[in-house]
């Protein structure tokens, strides 16, 4: 990973690029820096903290935030006294690990690479756009980015919300949406897609801090189109956050308050006073977009984002260069994470030929056998961490205390236990004193356990014969003013660790081989894309389809909003799948049964019709669930009862046909028909764009057609906003309706009548259009069966529930099972394709490795003690315990490869038959006993 780096040039072609990178000096040796933070404390110069949006002061020598990667400080040359004026250098002697190096020079480096992924993120809206809201003129008008830092517990105000003018807590707050988005005034016609959701989040967080604060969100449309996002809006409304559909004209200072002027839909102008105003600023294209385009020769769209098309959403106009994240278009975290996986799979496929080359495997010495009855010889190392620990904790006293304990054969102190030379000392002492358990009292096992375990392996010891005591992060740093009590706490923690160390045993390193084949369930665009992506990466898959043929919902679509022809793309995709030697397609097929775990599944699949139906068993390593969804047909608005009422999908089919009257002279479209709190509780994300796409098509065929759209919120997020604007320019009328005042459709003779309340004219209107088009939602295809078969959780709306909404958006909680497409949630075709590529990327990880590594801390069942009650099976959240018949008796057994080591099974087993590696009952009990044995400290 090269940070502090600039991308200067790119030469060559796909498969053989040369990139030129400039590495800016950080003036700190990254390998030596221990991130102790002493330099920042001593640095005398102030530096406005850009990470905290300028709301805090840091020093030129600093780290952006505690979890920054790499965890290394750097010097910002723009304000460093030495780099600007050749004076100071106070940091140099302060740094105990001699990491500061002012001699570092910029370094130009050439990299030979095969593929490029562009992920520069997004840029900031020009402050000029914010001026009309008094931003920069009054301190209590802040951007949402600034407000985010303010509400963050680890931010400069530790989460305290206050007015910058006088430090008071605001009682009335306003959020103004669409600042710098949907605004052709600043040349940003697009919707930034994320601002509605983050404004709701920030409002919810504010309410958590102070339930009394009065919050109003001023909006044009609330665009919470993401999976389960509408629920957040409802939650906000339920706790009193007000949503006002209005256009905000300006914000002006008014004594020590702010006055907000806004116009509502019915044409009224109103004023409201506020203490604090948050501007929900949009996402701009990255600052360097044009520079990147010049270097890589990729095309940009008219807003300077990377240009891509619906069927190759991450492919730039240059071969070998793909894009991920907000540079492809404004998007939120789950979608960015999904795109990053997808981009990796595209790059990996193009680099297939060189996979694994240049990798060197480390060879460890043979592991020393440590038997259960061997004498326990514990070595205790107490770390000073420079002065991070030793300035508070009396390290010598702690080490001496440990030396008096039973089984401790060696004890010492280290200045920096993690330094290279200290590792050598530890290895030497292990051999010299024949140590067979190592206890290190230093920082956190979360950051340093892997490093010390590596040292143990180098010394020929099993890595689990190790216990770490946290006397820095959870002791010296948090009890800085109480050195004596901190020393006592350190002694207690060491005593508890030594007690546990006496009982720890070596644990076997297990790996499980992987069958390098995937089972893909569902052959719509998601399943086909995933299977083809895996094929391109070199892996076989079995693609099973419930229906007669492959293609899925794409068969019902004819064109996209961007104007691409769907059917010709579908034909290419279907042909590719059929021709691929690596994809085995089974139609009229369903999964009957699956046994096994990640890397080693065996599934029974029934396929064929009638007498030709056969069952076969397929061995495979991973499963991709792409079972899709379908149009929801509500029993409302005369759908199915009147020929003049159709769904958008039916209208699309009609428009794609040849009939002369296919684009009727007058159409009323009703959005959210059956959705968002009606039959379906959620927003289906695609319907607004679907309506727009049909509107533009109708207008193309019959420019005189009069179209009225009745909607709740037009959710033409991202670049689709352009189409919404275009439709309005063409004279299409958009009228919002309230959820408790839905339009009514009735039949009058051969005509249909639509009656609705016109919120603009403030009166009831009746129309008799030639056609009523309903924008209906999407429901998942049967997820119950598969959910039971594979133990996969589903949401309240019956879509599959991903393992982590933000961080693991295409993985399911059962290891080795991935999800993509409509089975995960409603989404348009481009997002489905990206998600399928991402699922293939994740599924390819075990397939590429060829084995699955099992963490040694998993659970294990002592079958003699097991009474076969099955409690553990019902409690395991990962489906990692199964019941087996052993000599005719029911016994539990852990599937090690699926176990996540949580220990719920062990805590609940009524006969103590289940044990956790490294966290056995005996070990934890010994810690508790040692906790109580305070007499000898």
């Amino acid at each position: 990973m090269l940070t502090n780096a600039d991308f200067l040039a790119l030469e060559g072609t796909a498969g053989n690029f040369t990139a030129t990178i400039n590495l800016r000096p950080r003036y700190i040796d990254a390998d030596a820096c221990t991130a102790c933070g002493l330099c920042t404390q001593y640095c005398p110069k102030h530096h406005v903290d850009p990470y905290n949006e300028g709301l805090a002061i840091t020093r030129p020598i600093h780290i952006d935030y505690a979890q920054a990667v790499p965890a290394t400080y750097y010097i910002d040359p723009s304000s460093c006294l030495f780099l600007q004026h050749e004076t100071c250098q106070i940091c140099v002697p302060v740094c105990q690990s001699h990491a500061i190096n002012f001699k570092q020079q910029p370094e130009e480096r050439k990299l030979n690479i095969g593929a490029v992924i562009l992920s520069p993120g997004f840029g900031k809206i020009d402050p000029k756009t914010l001026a009309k809201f008094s931003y920069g003129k009054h301190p209590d008008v802040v951007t949402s980015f600034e407000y985010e830092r303010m509400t963050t517990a680890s931010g400069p105000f530790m989460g305290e919300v206050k007015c910058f003018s006088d430090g008071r807590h605001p009682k009335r707050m306003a959020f103004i949406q669409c600042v710098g988005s949907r605004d052709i005034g600043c040349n940003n016609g697009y919707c930034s897609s994320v601002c509605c959701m983050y404004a709701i989040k920030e409002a919810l967080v504010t309410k958590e801090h102070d339930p009394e604060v009065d919050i109003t969100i001023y909006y044009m449309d609330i665009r919470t189109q993401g999976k389960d996002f509408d629920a957040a809006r409802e939650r906000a409304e339920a706790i009193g956050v007000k949503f006002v559909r209005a256009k905000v004209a300006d914000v002006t200072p008014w004594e020590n308050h702010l006055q907000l002027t806004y116009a509502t839909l019915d044409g009224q102008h109103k004023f409201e006073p506020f203490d604090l105003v948050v501007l929900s600023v949009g996402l701009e294209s990255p600052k360097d977009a044009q520079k990147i385009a010049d270097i890589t020769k990729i095309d940009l769209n008219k807003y300077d984002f990377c240009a891509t098309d619906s069927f190759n959403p991450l492919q730039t106009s240059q071969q070998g260069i793909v894009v991920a994240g907000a540079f492809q278009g404004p998007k939120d975290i789950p979608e960015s994470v999904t795109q990053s996986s997808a981009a990796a799979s595209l790059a990996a496929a193009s680099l297939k030929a060189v996979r694994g080359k240049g990798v060197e495997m480390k060879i460890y010495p043979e592991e020393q056998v440590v038997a259960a009855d061997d004498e326990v010889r514990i070595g205790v190392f107490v770390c000073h961490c420079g002065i991070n620990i030793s300035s508070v904790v009396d390290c010598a006293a702690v080490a001496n205390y440990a030396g008096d304990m039973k089984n401790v054969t060696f004890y010492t102190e280290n200045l920096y236990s993690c330094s290279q030379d200290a590792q050598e000392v530890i290895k030497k002492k292990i051999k010299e004193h024949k140590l067979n358990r190592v206890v290190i009292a230093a920082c956190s096992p979360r950051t340093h356990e892997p490093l010390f375990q590596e040292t143990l392996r180098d010394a020929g010891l099993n890595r689990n014969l190790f216990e770490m005591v946290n006397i820095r992060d959870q002791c010296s740093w948090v009890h800085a003013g109480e050195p004596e009590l901190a020393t006592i706490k350190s002694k207690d923690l060491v005593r508890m660790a030594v007690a546990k160390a006496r009982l720890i045993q070596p644990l076997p390193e297990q790996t499980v081989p992987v069958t390098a084949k995937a089972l893909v369930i569902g052959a719509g665009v998601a399943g086909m894309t995933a299977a083809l992506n895996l094929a391109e990466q070199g892996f076989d898959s079995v693609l099973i389809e419930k229906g007669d043929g492959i293609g899925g919902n794409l068969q019902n679509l004819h064109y996209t909003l961007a104007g691409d022809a769907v059917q010709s793309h579908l034909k290419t995709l279907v042909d590719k799948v059929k021709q691929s030697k690596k994809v085995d397609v089974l139609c009229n097929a369903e999964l009957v049964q699956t046994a096994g775990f990640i890397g080693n599944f065996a599934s029974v699949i029934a396929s064929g019709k009638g007498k030709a139906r056969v069952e076969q068993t397929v061995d495979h390593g991973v499963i991709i669930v792409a079972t899709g969804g379908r149009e929801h047909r509500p029993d409302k608005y005369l759908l199915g009862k009147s020929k003049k009422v159709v769904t958008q999908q039916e209208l699309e089919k009609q428009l794609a046909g040849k009939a002369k009257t296919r684009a009727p002279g007058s159409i009323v479209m009703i959005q959210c028909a059956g959705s968002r709190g009606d039959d379906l509780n959620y927003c289906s994300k695609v319907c607004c764009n679907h309506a727009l796409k049909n509107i533009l098509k109708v207008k193309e065929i019959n420019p005189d057609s009069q179209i009225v759209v009745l909607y709740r919120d037009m959710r033409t997020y991202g670049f689709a906003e352009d189409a919404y604007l275009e439709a309005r320019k063409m004279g299409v009328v958009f009228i919002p309706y309230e959820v408790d005042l839905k339009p009514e459709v009735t039949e009058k003779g051969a005509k249909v009548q639509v009656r609705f309340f016109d919120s603009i004219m403030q009166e009831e209107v009746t129309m008799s259009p030639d056609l009523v088009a309903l924008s209906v939602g999407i429901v998942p295809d049967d997820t119950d069966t598969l959910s039971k078969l594979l133990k996969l959780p589903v949401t309240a709306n019956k879509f599959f529930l991903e393992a982590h909404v933000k961080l693991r958006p295409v993985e399911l909680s059962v290891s080795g099972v991935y999800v993509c497409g409509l089975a995960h949630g409603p989404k348009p075709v481009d997002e489905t394709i990206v998600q399928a590529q991402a699922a293939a990327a994740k599924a390819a990880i075990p397939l590429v490795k060829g084995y699955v590594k099992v963490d040694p801390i998993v659970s294990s069942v002592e079958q003699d003690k097991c009474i076969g009650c099955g409690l553990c099976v019902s409690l395991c959240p990962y489906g990692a315990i199964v019941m087996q018949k052993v000599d005719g008796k029911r016994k539990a057994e852990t599937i090690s490869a699926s176990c996540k080591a949580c220990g719920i099974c062990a805590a609940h087993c009524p006969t103590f038959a289940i044990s956790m590696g490294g966290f056995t009952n005996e070990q934890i009990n010994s810690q508790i006993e040692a906790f109580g044995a305070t007499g000898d400290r």
Partner: protein
Amino acid sequence: MADQQFNPSILGFLCNWCCYAAADAAGVSRFQYPPSMRTVRVMCTGRIDPAFVLRAFVEGADGIFSGG
């Protein structure tokens, strides 16, 4: 009076993935709190057997902290 202040002896069971990480983050941010808790790291608070809690009280704990 200061010596008679109640200084409880607390045993905390912290989940490796959340509360233990949060305790580390508190350290990184140098938040100060009383040094009256000793910790046992577990991989999930689901690991906490009620028997552990009872045993800790037997061993003299004044309170148990479970963070997950």
